[in-house]
């Protein structure tokens, strides 16, 4: 946690130095203030995990702000990945509180940071959400989807000609239909992934998928992850592409359709999986190369 705090301070200092030199943020560039969600969910650190999960599940969001202890201090954050890790660890969510799982001193950025800066922080530190904090209060939360959506809408996606195959993960992991949610969460947690395929080998049929979001919904409903089966919690929506389709097409589909993952298939079956994080990493790499 100390490392996170240090990284945060370093980033803030870097932004400040840049601003003093008149380099950052870029004048007239879109800032995260323009794309952030201001309608944020705030939960208290004493709330139980199922209660916090229920609020996130109802709004179908993957992260909530945890109220800071004192005014002007940085807020905390709890995400669906924290809930997934909790289920994976074998702990009983109903006996845990937000305080047991959340990340205090969340990674924050000032509101006038550029989308490019936010994207770089997200990819280098592996965050899907950043808290927008002006030094006194939390103004909003910005996600990978917000940034990709804005770039896509304005036709400013870097690396327009890049193919999905260059960004996707080819090491696709699958769980069984009969696995319990606990087993599936544990397998996903061990590999540090947020989604797994289900029955990928069924010839000619679109494979199923389960993600951290489905685990969150189940915890929110107060279900027992030791008895609930993957078969009853498959992601209701998923989409597919071929490896040589363009990354910009995938970005547009993910931001418009709200997909966190795209399953990449070819004539031989599943070729890979493209997550929002893979997409962002590739876009940042392309923009650096340009």
């Amino acid at each position, binding site marked *: 946690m100390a490392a996170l705090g240090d990284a945060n301070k370093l980033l803030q200092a870097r932004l400040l130095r840049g601003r003093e030199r008149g380099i950052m943020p870029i004048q007239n560039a879109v800032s995260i203030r323009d794309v952030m969600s201001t309608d944020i969910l705030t939960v208290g650190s004493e709330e139980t995990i199922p209660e916090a999960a229920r609020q996130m599940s109802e709004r179908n969001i993957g992260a909530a702000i945890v109220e800071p202890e004192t005014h002007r201090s940085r807020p905390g954050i709890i995400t669906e990945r924290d809930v997934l890790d909790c289920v994976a660890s074998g702990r009983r969510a109903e006996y845990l509180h937000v305080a047991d799982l959340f990340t205090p001193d969340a990674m924050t950025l000032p509101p006038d940071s550029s989308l490019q800066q936010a994207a770089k922080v997200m990819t280098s530190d592996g965050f899907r959400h950043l808290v927008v904090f002006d030094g006194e209060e939390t103004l909003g939360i910005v996600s990978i989807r917000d940034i990709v959506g804005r770039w896509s809408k304005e036709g400013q996606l870097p690396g327009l000609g890049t193919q999905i195959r260059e960004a996707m993960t080819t090491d696709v992991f699958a769980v069984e239909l009969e696995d319990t949610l606990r087993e599936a969460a544990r397998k996903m947690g061990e590999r540090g992934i947020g989604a797994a395929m289900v029955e990928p080998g069924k010839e000619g049929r679109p494979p199923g998928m389960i993600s951290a979001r489905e685990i969150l919904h189940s915890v929110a409903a107060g279900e027992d992850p030791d008895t609930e089966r993957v078969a009853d919690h498959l992601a209701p929506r998923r*989409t597919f592409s071929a490896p040589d*389709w363009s990354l*910009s*097409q*995938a970005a547009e589909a993910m931001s418009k359709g709200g997909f966190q993952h795209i399953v990449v298939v070819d*004539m031989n079956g599943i070729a890979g999986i493209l997550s929002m994080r893979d997409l962002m990493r590739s876009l940042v790499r392309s923009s650096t190369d340009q």
Partner: protein
Amino acid sequence: MDGVRRRLARGLVRGTVAAMAMTGGRQVTTGLGLVEQTPPDAIIKQRAPGLLVRMPRLAFFVARRQAALVELAHWFYGAGGGAAFAMLPDSVRRRSVWAGIGYGLFTTLVFELGIVPILGLDKFKKIRPIEQLMFTADHLLYGLILAEGEKRALPEKRGRWLR
């Protein structure tokens, strides 16, 4: 009415055959590296996000069989173009070479000035001059095959001295 239907049917068949000939030509130009990506390929790879968002099952089907589906779609357009050519006046269709060249250039222009800007395909990849030349050449091939077939189907024009 029957005559029109027969003309349309003939046009559809000729259009399909001419599009198939284009496919063969494109296999060669793509294989030689002159063309990186054919226009029907570009459309499906770059401009079908709606398919992914609204019709994921169809996206799955297309992604697994795209090589065949892209060609089928191209033949389908080719058939439509053949039917349209068949409805041109006899006087035009009789001039097989000029009508073929003209129609080939026309279909190239429809693609370049209509489909490319509408779908924004030019944003993704700069088309090299050699690719442009190859696209024009295979549309000319399409036009010539279509026109020559149509000319052969027309009744022989009697010479003035036979009247």
